[in-house]
């Protein structure tokens, strides 16, 4: 069922064709992506909704370019980086995350997740964005650079620095070393 909204000029703006299906199918993944950046569902929803609102008027051209998801993620990242300073005082990195992942996991898995997310949330926003884009969204360095609007070298530097900080967490370091010993 199509719906509509008003533009800033008071004109009726119909819901773009296909946007509804995109939202329904992609919003869970987009929310997880935004959560990985922000660490809380409220901010994640804000980011995704902001991105989807920005997508609305450009939907047709994005569909033609066959890259709506890329665009939405780009808006999410850019908006996240823009918000970072205004939200700076609200962001309180903690070792024990306020949000606890699913209850069905064994304690070891929960500990590991908390270790991962704890270090991730303590990364500077830009480094965190690089880590999330590279290793959570599975983008290449070039795609990450494109997404962030920076050079490849900048992505590599942020990635290197962030990985070094992730390795500084003992539980993570143990896992990463284990992975090396598996080779």
């Amino acid at each position, binding site marked *: 069922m199509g719906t509509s909204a008003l533009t800033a*000029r008071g004109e009726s703006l119909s819901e773009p064709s296909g946007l509804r299906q995109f939202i329904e199918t992609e919003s869970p993944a987009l929310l997880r992506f935004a959560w990985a950046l922000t660490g809380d569902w409220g901010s994640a929803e804000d980011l995704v909704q902001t991105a989807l*609102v920005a997508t609305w008027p450009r939907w047709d051209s994005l569909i033609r370019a066959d890259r709506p998801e890329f665009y939405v993620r780009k808006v999410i990242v850019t908006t996240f980086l823009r918000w970072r300073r205004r939200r700076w005082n609200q962001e309180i990195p903690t070792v024990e995350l306020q949000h606890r992942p699913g209850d069905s996991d064994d304690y070891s898995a929960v500990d590991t997740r908390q270790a991962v997310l704890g270090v991730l949330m303590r990364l500077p926003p830009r480094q965190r964005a690089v880590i999330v884009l590279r290793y959570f969204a599975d983008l290449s360095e070039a795609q990450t650079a494109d997404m962030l609007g920076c050079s490849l070298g900048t992505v590599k530097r942020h990635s290197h620095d962030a990985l070094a900080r992730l390795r500084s967490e003992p539980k993570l370091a143990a896992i990463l070393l284990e992975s090396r010993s598996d080779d």
Partner: protein
Amino acid sequence: MTDEEHRLAALLQQAVPQPPRSITAEDITAQVARRATAAPHRFVPWFPALAAACVLLVIAAASVWLISGHSTHSTPTAKSPSASTSLLPTATSPSTRPRNSGDPVVPRQSDVTAEPPTRQLPDSVGPWSARGLYGGDLDFVLVSGPDAAYGLEGRLLDRFEPPYGNIAEQVQLDPNTRWPPLVTPRALWLMVMTDGAIILQMRDPHTLQKIGSLRVATALAFMEPNWVPVLAANSDASKLFLANANQLYSINPADGVVEHRMSVDGHIGGLAVSPDGSRLYVGVNAQGSGKTASLLILDIERGLSTISKTPLADGLVTNLLATSGAVWATVADTVYFMSLTDLGHRQVVTAGGGGLPASATLAGGVVWLTGLGSMACADASTGEVRAEARNSGWGNMANYVGSVQLVAGHWFGTFATNYSDDRGLAGFTPPAACR
């Protein structure tokens, strides 16, 4: 990716939980509608009819029609008449702005769509397709180096990278740092006021970290918050010139030695070095308000000896720009062009006001004359205006795009909109006549 990176990717996938709820199309529709209806100062098509009706009503009631008539220029949620001051920095402090004010900043994505998904300034565009790239409480003076532009946000120094104006670095500055800095190929030179000295603090142009400092002892008290000394350098940055009150210092940046020092008969408001490095232009404000400012031309190679002194205009000099054969002086809200062949000067733009400064910057080989409601480019030698854009500032359109900089082929400036209190970094595309 290495195995280590693969393991990290798997960990992240496991660690990020599933969302407790999904976002629906209805959520987005409601957001779009809410934003459209909440846009407080947009120009709406029925505005003229509403205005006319209001005026008729006021006349019929025989009330104070002038005041009421003026109020019809505002939408129902428009600000009080004092909104004209909303362009002042104090009106846009982060604490008073909604976190999510305006649309998101979206970088240009030429590979995605022909229509760049940048944040267009609301309701059409600003001058020359100006578009907001970053919304922040930026000082209106922007400076640039070869690969970045630099802005001041409160006490934060931002490094903006082309092409999207993303903040690549951001550092907090020392208290009592004055803006704008001098940008040389090797450093950003910031002036930090202390009691009895000005510290010329050098920061790396890429990392913005401190890389050195020079201390210039100064005799006069200058700790007043609004007092800003002026710093300039010759083209190869082998000489620095610092002006503080009526004192002028020539400094060797290699060793920090003050090579020359002189006094002038007024407070110095602007400094510029000629492109060939032989002349120092000094904008001197006469003591007392309303007095005529003057331009002092000094011979650098002869120990800052005076070549000439020429009256400029009534008011305070706030900036000087030197181009080949000419000097551009910003006095009060007006930019004057002065040909060095005859030292005759003429007004080229009157565009400041409302807390928004008139400015003249050299970028891309032309001089950009910007101010409230006006933007022009002019020939750097003759002062002839090549192209000009005007903006009435209706609604949320940008009525100010200033401090133009060209960075790696991309044009930037600071912007402000009329009523929305929105300001920040803008990108724009100049007409061919300006390039």
